[in-house]
Each structure stands twice: as C-alpha cells, then as structure tokens.
C-alpha cells in the first residue's frame, strides 16, 4: 500500500478470562486503541490504574488520516513521556500561507513568541503516532491491549458496566467500573446506548493523496483558493515524515468518489499542481466527506465519550485529534481522584461540561471555516469570492479569509472548578486557561516550566528576589501532605538554592507571562490548566480553591 511504510500486525492473544470462562471486573476499560484511547490508557497506567484496551483491529491507523498535531496535544504527550519521538520523526511547522489564484493573500505564524519547549505544530502520519503511543502503552505495563476484540453490547448496571466482546475465539463478557469510549466517529458504543449525535453534513468531497517526492516546498501549511492547477476549488498541502506530502483537493459535491480515486484521474491533478517534471509516487488515495456534530453530554453514567465518538468536526483547522487528546487529559485525573475517593462523583460531570464547551468552540470554528471553503449557497460563495478579491489589496479583508483557524486549547471560562479572580492580573493566565511555558532552571539544570506541571495539582509561588516566608512554605508543605495530589514550587528571579523546589525564572518570561509579582500564587490543575491565581498567599483561600477544583 505504502512505499514508505509497512503496517505492523499485532498478535491476537486469547485473554485468560475468555479461555477460562470467568467474568472479571476491571477498574477501567477503554474501547478503541486510537490516539485518544491510547492517551487515556497511558495516563491511567502511569497513575497506577490497570487498563484494558479493546480494539477490533490488529494494526495501527490505516491510510492517510490525521496529520497535524498541535502544541497542546504534544504537551499532553510530553507529560506522558512520548512527545520527543513524535517531534523528532515529524515535521515541525508554524507558518501557514494562503493563496488565491496564483498569488499569496497572507501568511500566519502559529507561535510568534520564543521560549517554548514544544513547537506550535508537527505533521506526522497517524500510523507513526499510534506506533509510538503503543510503545508507550506497553512500557506503562498496566495496559492490557486486546486486539481483534469487538464490543457487541454495553449494559450499564448500578455500579459497573457489562460488556460482551467478540474475538476470533467467540464471545465473552467482562465487567468494568468505568468505560471510556474512544471508538471514533462511527462509535458503536454510542449507538448501543442510543445517544443522539446530531449536526450538519457538508455537501462537499475532498480527495486525499499521500505522495512521496523530493520537493522544494518549505515545511509550511499551504492552502490555495482557486489555484491555476485546480480552478474554482481549494487545495491544501502539508509535508509529513519520510518525504511524504499530503495533498487535499476539493472536488465538490457532484464528484463521483470512485472515479476520482482512480490513478488516471489523480495523477493529472498532481502533475498540474507539482509540474510535469516533478517525480513523485502516489502512495495513498481516498475521498472523504465530513460533518460537524456532537453528543449533548459526554458522560452517560459510567461510560465516557472522548474524541470523535463524542464530537466530529471538519478537518480545516486540525481540531479533531487535537480536541480528542485534551478530552482524555481532562478526564483521567478526575477519574483517578473519584476512584480514590478523594473527589465526589460530580467531578466527572465537569468533564462533560468543560469538554462540551471546548467542542462548541471547535465546532464553531470548523463550521465557519467550512462555510468559507465550501459555501452553502450562491450568495455565500459570492461573499467568499468578494473577500478573496478584496484581500489582494486590503489588509482588513485578509482577516476574513478563512482557510481554517488552527486548533488552540480551550479556556474553561465558566467552569465551576475555577476560582474567579479577585485580584487584577494582566495577560492570558486567567482561571481556566491552559498554563503557558517558560524557561526555568532547577538545581542549576536548564529546563521548562511545563515539565513541572501536570500529574497532580501544582502551586507556583512567585518569590521574585525575596525569600519564601517560612509560614508560606509550611502551609504549602501541609497541603502536599493532604489527600489531593499537590506539589509546589517557588519561582525566583535569581539563583539561590534556598529551597529544593525552587525554579529560576531564567529570563523573566514567567514573570511576564504570568504577570507575577512577589507573593503571587497560581494554582495549576493536573491537566495544566489554571484553577486560580492571587496576588498574595492565603492558605485558607488556596485550600478552598483546591477543593473547588476537585468538585468538593
């Protein structure tokens, strides 16, 4: 199928339960070993929870599917210890260019500031991504990957869920305290539970081609409206690993997908785009349509939906996997706290509340992009072409040109887990926002703030040039001994080593990005989102914020 890639085949191993005919109760069962299911499984395993992962296939993602992984997804994977491999194999990029006809309309930069560990975006074929996640899952040791395992039925009980699973050896039952359904857009779990999944279908088709070639194009996202090589339609170009280029051609609704997939149709399109003399090899061809829709609620009792099983977006803006991974990131720490009896069950409702808010934002953006790329009416197309025409000469019109608003993490603005600001702060680190990175030094070693966040709650106390008052340190240490996983760091502006947990703000980025003044404190959640921030330390206030952040 691919010149550059050979699909691994994972062995089907009959489970002990099926062999012996015993029904076992597992703490968590994840359905679907795709990017989102594996992320959830690795995170749970690293937190000490054994996980069974059921997948109906026995290999990685087939074909050309997800390509662009955003900073936030990479930060989640970095926390799980698997991002560097992806970044090394993938193609790092941050510049996008938009063309109309044969000239450039404008360009954008997705990470216009320096001093971040993780890049804005990487491009990597989904089969590589899944291979690396599978390696991390195996290393985590508590992940029980079961291939050729198809869920036939889901029966929720009062305090657990019963699943019937079909394997090459027949059908067996297993039980789970909790189920995470990461089984994709066509989720059978969702269908079995009879949950509505409504939204809109867009009347358009796109041809995807993965093409191997040595090309002079830079590692940038290039999008064309009405290029000379594909008149009246759009084209998108991305560089992936192994000199494989991903090209999306808009075909329109009237196109016949079976006809368009034929090499004799695809190759002339590619030659028109790349030039007659460019040598290339066609590795993969498929045609896709897309829809924008979501579940009303991502929680159904003891079953959670994450990724495409919960929400589906059009691909412009890379908001699919890049919102599924933060779903897993949001859910796992909450599930662990509930399983440990530290947080009430209602904390799990906040998973749906917060991630539905994110899905709404992603659906809004991807729908708007799709309306611009695939106008739904004649007048919509006229306005679209008017914006493109004006964009040639007028900067204001360039901001209307929408070839995709690339994925950014959602700020949980209205989440009840936040503690609202009572002090005035500048900048973006509002309660609910994803924490931003800064270069820091710990015990003389250069590093990154993001590496110190996540896993549990972290308080960042900005000491500046002052010592950390003894009573502040004592109260923070006391919180760390409490039931909620909690750690703290003092952030300083000069090397001191007075306390083991000190982070040096090497070039003032932390102070700048967090608008920190001596005594200010930021409480960061296990998913690296800000829970609250204050100008002065108050132990009771902080304890209250910590409780609020776990739904107590």
């Amino acid at each position, binding site marked *: 199928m691919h010149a550059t890639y050979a699909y691994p085949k994972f062995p089907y191993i009959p489970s002990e339960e099926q062999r012996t005919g015993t029904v076992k109760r597992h703490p968590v069962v994840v359905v679907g070993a795709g990017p989102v299911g594996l992320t959830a499984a690795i995170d749970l395993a690293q937190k000490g929870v054994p996980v069974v992962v059921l997948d109906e296939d026995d290999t990685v993602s087939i074909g050309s599917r997800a390509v662009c992984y955003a900073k936030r997804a990479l930060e989640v994977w970095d926390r799980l210890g698997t991002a560097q491999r992806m970044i090394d194999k993938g193609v790092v990029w941050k510049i996008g260019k938009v063309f109309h006809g044969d000239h450039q309309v404008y360009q954008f930069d997705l990470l216009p500031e320096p001093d971040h560990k993780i890049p804005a975006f990487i491009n990597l074929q989904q089969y590589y991504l899944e291979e690396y996640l599978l390696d991390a899952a195996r290393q985590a040791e508590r992940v029980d990957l079961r291939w050729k395992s198809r869920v036939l039925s889901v029966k929720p009980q009062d305090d657990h869920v019963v699943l019937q699973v079909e394997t090459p050896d027949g059908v067996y039952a297993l039980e789970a305290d909790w189920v995470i359904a990461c089984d994709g857009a066509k989720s059978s779990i969702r269908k079995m539970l009879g949950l509505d999944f409504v939204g809109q279908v867009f009347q358009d088709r796109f041809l995807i081609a993965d093409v191997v070639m040595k090309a002079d194009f830079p590692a940038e996202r290039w999008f064309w409206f009405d290029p000379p090589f594909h008149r009246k339609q759009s084209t998108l170009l991305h560089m992936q690993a192994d000199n494989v280029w991903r090209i999306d051609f808009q075909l329109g609704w009237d196109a016949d997908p079976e006809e368009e997939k034929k090499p004799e149709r695809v190759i002339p399109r590619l030659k028109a785009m790349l030039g007659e003399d460019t040598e290339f090899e066609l590795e993969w061809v498929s045609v896709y349509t897309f829809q924008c829709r979501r579940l009303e609620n991502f929680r159904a009792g003891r079953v959670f939906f994450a990724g495409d099983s919960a929400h589906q977006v059009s691909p412009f803006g890379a908001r699919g996997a890049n919102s599924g991974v933060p779903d897993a990131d949001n859910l796992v720490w909450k599930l662990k706290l509930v399983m440990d009896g530290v947080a009430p069950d209602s904390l799990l409702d906040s998973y749906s509340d917060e991630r539905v808010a994110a899905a709404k934002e992603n659906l809004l953006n991807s729908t708007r992009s799709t309306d611009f790329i695939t106008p739904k009416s004649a*007048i919509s197309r*006229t*306005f679209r*072409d*008017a*914006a493109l*025409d*004006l964009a040639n000469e*007028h900067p*204001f*019109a360039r901001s*209307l040109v929408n070839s995709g608003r690339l994925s950014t993490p959602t700020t949980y603005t209205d989440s009840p887990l936040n503690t609202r600001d009572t002090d005035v702060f500048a900048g973006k680190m509002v309660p609910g926002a994803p924490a931003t990175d800064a270069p820091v030094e710990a015990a003389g070693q250069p590093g990154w703030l993001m590496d110190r966040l996540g896993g549990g709650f972290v308080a960042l106390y900005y000491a500046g040039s002052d010592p950390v008052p003894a009573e502040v340190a004592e109260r923070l240490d006391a919180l760390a001994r409490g039931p909620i996983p909690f750690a703290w760091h003092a952030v300083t502006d000069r090397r001191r080593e007075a306390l083991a947990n000190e982070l040096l703000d090497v070039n003032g980025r932390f102070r700048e990005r967090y608008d920190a003044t001596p005594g200010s404190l930021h409480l960061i959640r296990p998913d690296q989102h800000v829970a609250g921030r204050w100008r002065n330390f108050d132990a009771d206030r902080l304890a209250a914020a910590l409780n609020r952040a776990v739904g107590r």
Partner: protein
Amino acid sequence: MATLVTENRLASPDDFYEALIDTHRDLNAEQSSMVNAKLVLLLANHIGDMEVLKEALALARKGV
C-alpha cells in the same frame, strides 16, 4: 451604546443614488452581485462596530 443612524446623512442624496446605480453600469447580474458583496464588506469594515452592524443586518433582513 452605538446605534445605526437611519436619519439622513447624505449631503446630496441624488448624487449618491446616481453613483450607486452608475457603479453597476454594464454589469450582468452575477457581476453586480459581486460588486454589492465587496461593497458590503468594505463598508462593514469602515463601520467596524458589531452592534451597529448587527442592527443594519437585522433591518436589511426585515420584511424580506
């Protein structure tokens, strides 16, 4: 709070009206539609205020 002005602000209404019709001279329906669309975008940007624009959009839609 800014609102859309619907009292007359055109110093010479007939001059404007003629200029508007004249802008469309010799254009077919499709071309005129494009000109109108560009004009809407240009003027909307000049106005800028989203509340004013929403009012104008609502008034334009009214009765259609």
